[in-house]
């Protein structure tokens, strides 16, 4: 039986702050040349921001427990953003590039390697590009 009316212990304001914190963590890792870990961490900024957006749209102080997921597509649906996402193909593409990293278990176990700077740089663009970045679109 799915618990439809249970909530996670995390508050809306905490998700908003969490997204900012993970962004700072992402930047700190990149500053230290920890490229591999930055790629693993980066998609969590999107996840936290979407969870904040869901609370905002649903006018809830805490996230419904059924949305305790890492699936960015599911979170975009419940944030009411899916239709809009499908009208902006370049951001849609970046969203799916990031989603693939987030779902790809292998990134958790990759040994740190300098050549992952390419991936970290690309991810930075997919996240923060002023025109097509997913987090730019999500207002972070």
């Amino acid at each position, binding site marked *: 039986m799915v618990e439809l009316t249970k909530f996670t212990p995390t508050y809306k304001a905490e998700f908003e702050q969490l997204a900012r914190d993970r962004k700072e963590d992402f930047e700190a890792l990149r500053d230290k040349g920890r490229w591999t870990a930055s790629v693993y961490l980066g998609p969590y900024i999107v996840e936290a921001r979407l969870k904040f957006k869901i609370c905002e749209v649903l006018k809830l102080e805490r996230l419904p427990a059924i949305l305790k*997921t890492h*699936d960015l*597509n*599911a979170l975009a*649906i419940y944030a009411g953003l899916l239709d809009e996402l*499908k009208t902006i*193909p*370049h951001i*849609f*593409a970046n969203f*799916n*590039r990031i*989603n*693939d*990293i987030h*779902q*790809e278990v292998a990134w958790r176990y990759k040994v740190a390697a300098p*050549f*992952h700077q*390419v*991936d970290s*740089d*690309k*991810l930075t663009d997919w996240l923060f590009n002023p025109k097509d970045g997913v987090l730019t679109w999500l207002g972070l």
Partner: protein
Amino acid sequence: MAGSIVSKKTLDRLRETFKRYGQEVLGDPDITVDFFATDYEGSVGVLLTSPRFQNMQYSERQDSVWDYLLNNPQVNKDDMFVISRISMEPEAVEFIGALES
């Protein structure tokens, strides 16, 4: 894992698109195209397999295929929106949840 309500016609068109990508961008007419179900109904994941991915970084593979989808006028944009992720591997991998097409 939820089933995925995507029509056979759409999957066939997507398969043709990715075959053309393999041929035109990677120079690999033998690229393998598989689809897998995602938790998100109405969408599919795509697994592309080609030895040409061997020398490309993860993010370069992503950019290569998405740039092709975004910029090629032959690509049906409505079809593109059923894709929830694209994974690319240089050699065959076994995966659970493959969709028949």
